[in-house]
């Protein structure tokens, strides 16, 4: 609408085979790019390492969620049965770690799952309404049989001609500049 001066988002390179894109990813990784990504129709074994990616940080959110759930479960049972409304049932103590356990265990799983889901959302900056790549018609093939490597303009090492050359040499069949 008012975007007379369209800003470029990045270079999108199309590949025909997983082997090609894997090798291209290695090259891009070795050159020290930081703002780039690979999009494929299905997970490719070994791609994480080829891209030089570390283990996902989602696990920490799961762990924190789990710990929170466990503590909440125990505190809740203690608060209800031994503090707020103490009532003797079946000759059992007011509070015991045994009967608090099923609740603590279930809440560990529940909040652990929440931690995983929302941690993943947070790390992926989701939800978002739009992504520049979706404007590119060619990119739709990523859900079918093509493999795409994207280098963003914001990468400090971004140099359009150099990247075009590198990716063409590695078997890219089509390279386009996508706008924001």
């Amino acid at each position, binding site marked *: 609408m008012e975007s007379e001066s369209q800003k470029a988002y990045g270079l999108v390179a199309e590949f025909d085979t997983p082997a090609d894109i894997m090798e291209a990813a290695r090259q891009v990784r*070795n050159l020290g790019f930081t703002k780039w990504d690979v999009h494929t129709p299905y997970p490719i074994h070994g791609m994480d*390492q080829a891209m030089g990616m570390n283990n996902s940080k989602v696990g920490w959110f799961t762990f924190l969620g789990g710990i929170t759930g466990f503590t909440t479960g125990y505190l809740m049972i203690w608060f209800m049965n031994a503090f707020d409304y103490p009532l003797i049932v079946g000759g059992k103590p007011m509070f015991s770690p045994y009967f608090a*356990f099923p609740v603590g265990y279930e809440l560990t799983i529940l909040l652990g799952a929440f931690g995983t889901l929302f941690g993943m959302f947070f790390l992926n900056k989701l939800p978002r309404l739009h992504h520049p790549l979706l404007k590119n018609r060619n990119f739709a093939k990523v859900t079918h049989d093509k493999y795409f490597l994207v280098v963003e303009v914001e990468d400090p090492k971004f140099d359009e001609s150099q990247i075009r050359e590198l990716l063409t040499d590695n078997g890219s069949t089509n390279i386009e500049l996508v706008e924001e």
Partner: protein
Amino acid sequence: MSSSTGNENQPAHVSLWPGQKELLKYLTLIAAVLALVSVNIKLDGNNDFGAQLAFSLLLALMFFLSICLGSLFLTLIHHLFDSTWSAPLRRVYENIATLIPWLAIPFGFLCLFGDQLYGWMAMESAGNPDHALHAKHAYLNKPFFYIRAIIYFSVWTWLANKLRYWSIRQDEEGTAECAFKMRKFAYMGVFLFAFTLTLAAIDWVKSLEHAWFSTMYGVYYFAGSVWTTLATLYALFLVLSKKGGPLEGIVGKRQFFDLGVLLFAFTVFYAYIHFSQYFLIWNANIPEETYYYVIRENGSWWDISMLIIFGHFFIPFLTLLRIDAKLSPAIVVPIAAWAWLMHYIDLSFNIMPVLHPEGFHWSYVWVDISCMVAIGGLLALKFIKKMDSAAPYPVKDPRLKEALEEQAIEREASEDAEMAKNGLQS
């Protein structure tokens, strides 16, 4: 594939140290003699000789039965799921599972001490005020007990041998028939396995206290067994796949990762099962069930129960929680050794309070160890012999090639990860 190490279809010579067979033979013999000496022990408040030996032998038998049955279970589920990752590991599972008939020797010896072990065997049913004795007489009587034991050993031996037979035939012929046969045995076998393991655990261990009830007992023994088996296998495969070992280049990162993941899963599973058993009894609070745990809170058995909670669950759970821990031999091997200790403690907790209600039997631990070394030594000798008699992995398994290709990718990926790390540092 260039990953073949030139030992295809060749029997594996397992060499842990020079002269291993002689050493194992002597160890087994000395331990057996030492165990036999303990037949003369007369315990306080117990008029029978041989009681300590009987209980220790039962413990050692159940310990190694765990590992053999755990391996049989892993063979069965390998075929049931037609899995790729465990194809290179299958032969070792089969070799351990076919050791089961050797356990009939200690079991036969145990039968001599039936009356010392099992209260219900020694008691006269007629006119006895013990209601549980009458109620359970139809199941817990001597002839049926021995018939069942024969059935269990026959079923396990038959299953393990059939699976190994067709597996070795596959090595020679490579026909699809072999794979289908093994699958058929797996379909049938998994039901037979579940029934026989459950009943064997109930017969041999739970019936030590015949008045007690627990519907979780079979799966409780199963959970602990597979846990110990996975720990053992992790360490064993590290030895077998080291440089120059028979499984070098065959067993790799993927296999260790999955063994580690399963070990972690069974850590949780065991805790879940044991907690469920305890919790139901604690919550229902019925004297004929609670007495079992009341005995186990006396004296040092209290400390042993705490050791089970923390040592059998929390320590391995928290240690193996991280994804990279499962791949690190420096972490998993100590945990595997710890798992042996914990499984021994767990079995002691189940078996020994009957004989030593006052507390853990520190002064008789040597009898346990002698029995364990005697049985373990015998099985180790037979295992080495089994490994020597066939290829160390199923060379013509249709999934093997897939597994090896996957490993080539894994190797590439580790090189990538290494390069990326070094690149970032420089």
